[in-house]
């Protein structure tokens, strides 16, 4: 949203920017440090497990590649939802918000299947350093996706009831920022954990 449009809907601020959006970007900045610490831990403990299973034995690259494409596609659905809300297209907003939530749920299903299969193959949170750092990192990411899915469903209900329009597009934009952040974190995890073994 341009600053001019912001002034039309919000009281002026020192920066000319919406406080909610600035605060949310600050929150996302703090989240980069949070995931940075988890990624650091994973990288430091990489290939230091003295017992199996290890990455080479257990990671399913084809399955994770599909789930990665699912999450990337959900980001496209999210920007289409925001564009529809900004244009006042209620039907488009309803369809794209539900699509984003559905693809997010599908990603979580892939992760649940992966965690379950790993558990049956002997990889648990406490079996070795790989298990501990892998489950904590990807588990926290999954928790973030879960929160995002619930957030999207709340927005979808509002869209169905006709309560989402150009006047409150900022609510969708902020949810979109969160969703895309979850996406970029997965871009990093997919490369560092799954592809660089």
């Amino acid at each position, binding site marked *: *949203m*341009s*600053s*001019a*449009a912001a*002034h039309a809907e919000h009281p*002026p*601020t*020192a*920066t*000319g*920017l919406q406080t909610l*959006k*600035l605060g949310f*970007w*600050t929150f*996302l*900045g*703090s989240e*980069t*440090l949070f*995931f*940075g*610490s988890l*990624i*650091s831990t994973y*990288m*430091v403990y990489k290939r230091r497990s003295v017992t199996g299973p290890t990455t080479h034995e257990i990671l399913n*690259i*084809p399955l994770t*590649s599909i789930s*990665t*494409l699912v999450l*990337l*596609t959900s*980001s*496209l659905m*999210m*920007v*289409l939802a*925001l*564009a529809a809300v*900004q*244009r006042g297209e209620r039907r488009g907003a309803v369809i794209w918000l539900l699509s984003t939530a559905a693809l997010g749920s599908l990603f979580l299903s892939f992760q649940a299947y992966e965690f379950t299969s790993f558990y049956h193959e002997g990889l648990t949170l406490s079996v070795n350093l790989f298990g501990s750092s892998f489950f904590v990192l990807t588990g926290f990411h999954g928790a973030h996706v879960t929160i995002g899915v619930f957030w999207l469903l709340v927005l979808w209900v509002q869209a169905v009831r006709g309560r989402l329009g150009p006047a409150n*597009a900022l609510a969708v934009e902020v949810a*979109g*920022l969160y969703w*895309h*952040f979850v*996406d*970029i974190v997965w*871009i*990093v995890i*997919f*490369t560092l954990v799954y*592809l*660089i073994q």
Partner: protein
Amino acid sequence: MSAEAAGGARPAAHGAEGHPGYKTYLLVAAVLGIITAAEVAVFYIPALAAALVPILLTLSTGKFILVVMFYMHLKFDSRIFTGVFVAPLLLAMAVVVSLIILFRVLPAYSPP
């Protein structure tokens, strides 16, 4: 100085709200899909094993930048948002690199 100038906002050259249009979003999505496919292909090509890490890091960095610039609109929004996000991101990257050097690289040079 106007508030807009103070905030460093770019001119809205991409339609409503200064955000890109559907075509740009679809183009970015296609590029992201192609890069992801390329990443997976590189992983399975034995001849590229020696250069695997730099290739994958380059491709994933490209994906990261595309999402942040176009889907999160940092290319079109105020530079303040960029600063607020990039500063802690650089700090996080410094932490990751520092810890890898401290725990993975330096021990190899320590005396027995």
